[in-house]
């Protein structure tokens, strides 16, 4: 409604490499702010994942891109250089694969796939041909005449995929497409999706709440929380360099040790936790400041054990004296809890030969942990980052 009072940053327009711009999108459902001034971009051919827990606004953002939701405020949304903020979903050059398939129950598989072409007035023969191509792509060519309720869950998902692809959209939006599938199917479908992405060179925007899925598939991940972006970057960034305690936690870092920053040097920060000082690379947003609360994030598989009597005193190593706690057998490995004087630490032990009953200390290399800000909230100024990109 009130587009005009937000200035459109001209610098971002006309960047040929960018296929999607969403600038300053805000959306409210009544009093609830679902999306709080978020801006994102996507490169042509990119596999971009919107990651977050439920209620983080990732689906809302996707729906705004699709045109299914009209944002409360938005500066601009451009697909392939064209401003589409006033264009309804039916005329946007992107299609969605829905979490619950949303296949039309009164149509056959073929009719479902053809639907997008039918509404575009494409003639019957060509429709059929293109639908068959799309079905072949998802290896369901033989199911053309079937009715939807005769298909299995995985097949339905692939039909939904074919239906979305057949109109050759500029962007394919996938809203937790694998959420309704069981574990094994999900892994198969991940592979299939990646194949498709590679084959078609399309831009995929993929919504998921599973960090594992995001890490496996994405070129880039945007992690969202409470309607804001907390961190974005390639999977390795989010995995190894969490920008906040929240990111680290969300990305599955098992050990988060909180303390205060004692010193900062060349991007390396030292944190005092109880009687110990732990050092590692600073990965938080902004600059680390002495005395600020910070958090050491270290993954369980990085934790190594020193048997009783061994000395752990090399440079570049963080060590904590410990005793053994509960052990959980996980088949391929053991999840071992270790009690230290700053609280329990989890270690993942792959080597069956290690004796965990009698320990001197646990240790890890400074390069194997990240020091990040202890705050749980969203990272500051997600908008700035988007502008900078």
């Amino acid at each position, binding site marked *: 409604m009130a587009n005009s009072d937000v200035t459109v940053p001209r610098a971002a327009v006309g960047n040929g490499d960018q296929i999607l711009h969403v600038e300053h999108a805000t959306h409210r459902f009544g009093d609830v702010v679902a999306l709080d001034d978020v801006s994102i971009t996507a490169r042509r051919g990119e596999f971009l994942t919107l990651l977050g827990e439920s209620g983080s606004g990732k689906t809302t953002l996707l729906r705004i891109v699709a045109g299914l939701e009209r944002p409360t405020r938005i500066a601009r949304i451009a697909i392939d250089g064209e401003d589409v903020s*006033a264009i309804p979903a039916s005329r946007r050059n992107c299609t969605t694969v829905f979490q619950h398939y949303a296949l039309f129950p009164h149509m056959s598989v073929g009719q479902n796939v053809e639907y997008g072409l039918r509404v575009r007035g494409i003639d019957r023969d060509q429709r059929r041909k293109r639908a068959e191509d799309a079905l072949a792509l998802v290896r369901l060519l033989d199911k053309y005449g079937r009715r939807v309720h005769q298909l299995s869950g995985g097949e339905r998902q692939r039909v939904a995929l074919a239906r979305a692809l057949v109109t050759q959209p500029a962007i394919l939006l996938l809203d937790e497409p694998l959420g309704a599938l069981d574990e094994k199917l999900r892994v198969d479908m991940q592979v299939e999706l990646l194949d498709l992405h590679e084959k078609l060179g399309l831009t995929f925007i993929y919504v998921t709440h599973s960090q594992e899925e995001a890490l496996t598939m994405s070129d880039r991940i945007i992690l969202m929380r409470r309607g804001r972006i907390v961190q974005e970057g390639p999977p390795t960034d989010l995995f190894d360099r969490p920008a906040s305690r929240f990111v680290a936690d969300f990305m599955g870092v098992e050990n988060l040790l909180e303390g205060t920053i004692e010193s900062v040097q060349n991007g390396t920060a030292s944190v005092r936790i109880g009687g110990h000082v732990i050092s590692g690379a600073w990965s938080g947003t902004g600059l680390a400041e002495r005395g600020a609360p910070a958090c050491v994030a270290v993954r369980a598989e990085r934790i190594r054990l020193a048997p009783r009597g061994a000395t752990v005193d090399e440079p570049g190593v963080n060590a904590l004296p410990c005793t053994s706690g509960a052990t959980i057998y996980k088949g391929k490995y053991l999840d071992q809890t270790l009690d230290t004087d700053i609280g329990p630490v989890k270690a993942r032990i792959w080597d069956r030969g290690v004796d965990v009953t009698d320990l001197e200390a646990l240790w890890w290399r400074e390069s194997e942990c990240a020091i990040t800000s202890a705050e749980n909230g969203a990272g500051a100024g997600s908008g700035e980052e988007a502008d900078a990109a």
Partner: protein
Amino acid sequence: MAATLTANDDVMRRLLPRLPAGVWSLSGFTVVWFGGIVIPLLAIILVSFFQGRGIRINLDPTFLQYERFFSYGGSDLLARSVRIAATITFIELMIAFPFALWLAKGCKNNMVRLLTFTALTVPFFLSPAARVIVWRSVFGINGVVNQALLATGAVDEPVTWLIFSEFAVHFGFLGAFFPTMVWPIFLSISLIDNDFLEASNDLGANRFRTLVHVIFPLALPGVVAGIVFTFIPMLGDTVVAQHMGGNNVLMLSAQVQSLIGVSNFLVAAALAAVVLGIMLAFQVLLWAALKPVGGLNEVFANLRR
């Protein structure tokens, strides 16, 4: 293209709120319906608190109409009407549910289905009076039943309670209101996915459990609709009570007709207000009965697979 469209959209948006067409038409329809129908109907209740004669009404508030209504035996009338209608509705439900279930899922012969549907529909086209009057000659003192009973020596005197009695009224309602119960239940059961029923059977649930735990909850909107379709028109029926009951078993609508026949609109309004109260109570009861599945609204709103 996009530019002109945007311009148009802006004009439209300034004039009209940004709502989907569905909400627009619903809002419009709702306003028309409430302004044109609900308010006049509610005005009836208001009128019942006034005095007057015929359509000349003066605006002195009073409970006189209610006093009059109840002094004419109104409470007996209401109790009798509701009792009879509720009894028959219950019996119809018991008979119609398995029948509708069979029609929707059990019957494999398409011709039998089509003929049964037709049979369930045709009575709607007939004047109810014509159907009911016939029973008088069947159940009357000289009627077929009595003649048969006398001939076989089962009775010495003709049985008089076959007609102009409560039995007769019940019997008259039974046939007449069967289709109204079957149709909605059939509709809702036929929407249940067969996979669902088969799955339930595969898992070893016996028939009864499938019925209670799978079919019944899914058919609930139809059951509720069926009860409404049956109970309410039955309360409003003028024909059966008159012809089968011979005015010995007075029911609500006959009373209303006689009130209107002598321009007694005010007592009729009071009666309408009381009936409205009963209907709301009925709805509350229904709601309470459906509370385990989320109440009446939810039955229609949230039943999704």
